[in-house]
């Protein structure tokens, strides 16, 4: 050691000073200051250099106003939203663990070089697949007519098919590239790919997701639409009795199994044997599956009624009817004035059937039945797909939701995004590190005892990872309660269903009235909640960890 105690203190202070000043000024000081602020009526629009009014100490009035005053429903609504979005946390933690176990398993090559040969073969295969897709999907020039698909009237059918071919080749290429990289680079590749969302989480990423969630023309709904259509077709063609029956049978079977596993688990737990926890876990999973199955079948039986709508259900607005008329004026021998008369007589909100019969009442148009049908059906299709404003408010059957625009689906949309963002992030890396620290001998011992994969997971992997899980749960709850601000501002522009506590604080403190005192109180209530949750986690978690 160099120098005496006093000299060492001075030297240490010299080293510490740059950091300490900032620490006191921007971290330690403000914490204390904030507590004081929360007990005042500090409002920047009232108390500033232009006014002489001084800040008043009002005790716990801010807290009372927030938690049980007239406006308290705001705070609790936003608290509910925050907690709702936190559903993503347990799901993503479970997902992170699963991904880590998968990545760490022997399914991915650990050493890149050993898979060089397979990587080359994979690469060759994906190139071949791309070429094949190119050849097979290439349109022939004979089909070169104007496309009649919705919104593509400026393109020829040939062009549309060429675009689809390119899209297909691109997709095949992506699949091939991922397979090749998975075989060739293995662990490193998946780790990097899954980490991307966390790395890029921010305004740019939220803008991307806002685009993905667009109700029309968004990637997510365009994937969902055919899937839901398929389900709908199956459901419509199956009698409702079968759905009810399946649902009830599933639920009964699940209940029976839950009962059995719980009894077994309980007796094992009483006998202080291990494995009771696993049985409880299985019962819980089965219960969730059974209840969802029952719920799904209840939803599905309502479908046939919704789907079997009378024909001619679609109705047209004035502009659409006029457009149909204009199109038919181009048909040879048609009297434009006659068409105008028919069209004007139809009026706003005419159904497809009415429109058709009115148009076909004209003798010339009746001879060109095909053109009339095409003109009407094309619009009809567009209305059904929601591309043109129709008059119906409710379209039949299963439809993908409007996600961020709807009040029911905005929060679930944010939850799903949250899972996607967090699943491969820091938590997965921590689990990977934890997995690599588990001694291999434990697995060998378990294998000698004849443990199955699931038993080894429950009895070796899970307990060994308990400290990691404990840390992750604590950090994620702390982060989750404070999260959601950027999403609300960027993706839903502060729509009420998605306002979280941090957004509320931002609104109080930094917009309109600059109510710094009240906003500080929000912060301290959140602090208290975080503290309580962390304390709970410590009590509950340390017991589980020591088990």
């Amino acid at each position, binding site marked *: 050691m*160099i120098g005496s*105690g006093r000299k060492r203190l001075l030297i*240490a202070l010299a*080293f*510490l000073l*740059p*950091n300490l000043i*900032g*620490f006191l*000024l*921007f*971290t*330690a000081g*403000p*914490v204390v200051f*904030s507590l004081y602020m929360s007990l005042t009526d500090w409002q920047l629009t009232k108390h500033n250099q232009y006014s002489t009014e001084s800040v008043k100490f009002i005790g716990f009035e801010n807290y009372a106003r927030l938690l049980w005053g007239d406006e308290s429903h705001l705070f609790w609504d936003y608290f509910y939203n925050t907690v709702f979005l936190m559903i993503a946390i347990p799901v993503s933690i479970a997902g992170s663990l699963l991904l880590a176990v*998968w990545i760490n398993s022997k*399914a991915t090559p650990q050493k890149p070089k050993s898979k060089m040969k397979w990587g080359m073969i994979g690469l060759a295969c994906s190139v071949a697949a791309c070429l094949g897709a190119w050849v097979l999907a290439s349109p022939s020039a004979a089909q070169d007519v104007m496309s009649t698909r919705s919104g*593509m009237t400026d393109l020829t059918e040939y*062009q549309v098919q060429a*675009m689809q071919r*390119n*899209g297909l080749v691109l997709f095949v290429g*992506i699949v091939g590239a*991922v*397979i090749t990289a*998975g075989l060739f680079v293995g662990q490193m590749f*998946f780790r*990097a790919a*899954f980490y991307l969302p966390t790395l890029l989480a*921010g*305004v*740019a990423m939220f*803008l*991307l*997701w806002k*685009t993905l969630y667009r109700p029309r023309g*968004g*990637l997510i709904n365009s994937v969902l639409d055919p899937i839901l259509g398929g389900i709908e077709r199956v459901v419509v063609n199956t009698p409702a009795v079968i759905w009810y029956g399946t649902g009830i049978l599933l639920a009964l079977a699940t209940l029976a199994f839950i009962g059995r596993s719980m009894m077994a688990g309980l007796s094992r737990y009483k006998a202080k044997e291990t494995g009771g926890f696993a049985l409880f876990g299985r019962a819980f999973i089965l219960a969730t599956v059974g209840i969802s199955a029952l719920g799904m079948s209840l939803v599905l039986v309502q479908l046939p009624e919704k789907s079997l709508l009378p024909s001619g259900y679609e109705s047209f607005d004035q502009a659409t009817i006029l457009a149909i008329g204009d199109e038919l004026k181009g048909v040879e021998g048609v009297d434009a004035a006659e068409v105008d008369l028919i069209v004007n007589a139809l009026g706003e909100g005419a159904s497809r059937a009415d429109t058709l019969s009115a148009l076909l009442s004209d003798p010339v148009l009746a001879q060109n039945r095909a053109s009339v049908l095409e003109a009407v059906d094309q619009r009809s299709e567009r209305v059904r797909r929601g591309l043109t404003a129709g008059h119906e408010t409710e379209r039949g059957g299963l439809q993908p939701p409007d996600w961020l625009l709807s009040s029911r689906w905005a929060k679930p949309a944010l939850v799903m995004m949250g899972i996607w963002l967090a699943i*491969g992030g*820091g938590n997965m*890396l*921590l689990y990977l*590190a934890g997995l690599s620290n588990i001694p*291999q001998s434990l*697995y*060998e011992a378990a*294998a000698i005892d004849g443990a*199955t*994969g699931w038993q080894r*997971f429950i009895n070796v992997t899970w307990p060994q990872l308990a400290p990691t899980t404990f*840390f992750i749960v604590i*950090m994620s709850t702390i982060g989750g309660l*404070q999260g959601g*601000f950027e999403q609300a501002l*960027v993706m839903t522009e502060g729509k009420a269903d998605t306002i979280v506590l941090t957004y509320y604080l931002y609104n109080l*403190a930094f917009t309109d009235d600059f109510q710094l005192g009240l*906003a500080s109180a929000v*912060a301290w209530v959140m602090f208290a909640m*975080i503290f309580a949750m962390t304390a709970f986690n410590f009590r509950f978690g340390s017991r589980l960890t020591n088990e």
Partner: protein
Amino acid sequence: MSDRSPIESATGPLAKLARPLTFVALVLLGISFVVPFVWQVLISLSDRSEVDRLTETGFPSRISLDAYVRVFDQVPFAKYFFNSFFVAGWVTLLQVITCSMAAYAFSRIQWPGRDKVFLLYLGTLMVPGVVLMVPNFVVILGLGMFDDYTGLIIPAAFSAYGTFLLRQFMLTIPSSLDEAAAIDGAGHWRIFTQVILPLARPGLIVLAIFAFLFNYNSFFWPLILTQSENLRVLPVGLLQFNTTYGSDVPAIMAAALMAMIPPIMLFLLLQKYLVKGIQLGAVKG
């Protein structure tokens, strides 16, 4: 036996399928993580009028860079880039300096009250960030740093977390090294700069990556602390761009894509350190 993985069953009909099934699952997930970004690139290369039907065609009819040109035409995007790099760069540099010095004081010098002060640092790590939002705003307002580069840089230039991280790292450096240097007559400053800092390089890089990424993505503080257009950083600029030109989806996607490139580059170059850093911060904490 030793090459068995935890998910593989010892027996059973599923045993042989476990490996390929796992691989298939990983590949499917990998695709779902890559596709959104590819989709983003496709939109950014499309014409404005084609965005709505891109889901039906899967590919633009003509690849064009017009959207990228529009971004630079409509907003000072280069300036946003500069601001983000300028602020994040300065913050990173200052954080590495202040935190490494403080970490040295906490790990290499014995002084009365050291542990108490360190405990205070640790204590503030538990304080949620929301508590600091309002008072820091007042402090920054009071120091006259509102709507100024200093307001974005100075408050972020000190980090209790960074100090903690580097202290943990420096504790792993054997003390025999600096004791030998002290016997050779080196003072603390020389030990710090010539012995500890070179050995703590991986730790410094980890902190630098974290600090840069965090401040590059930082949104809340620039949003409330700046007003002028020429101080706008990328996240705030992107939000503003989206509010004004929200219907121009290709341009929004182009702008977002450009903003994502620096972190990706950083990650690809320094992946090893980033992974290590995340694990260091947690395992030792």
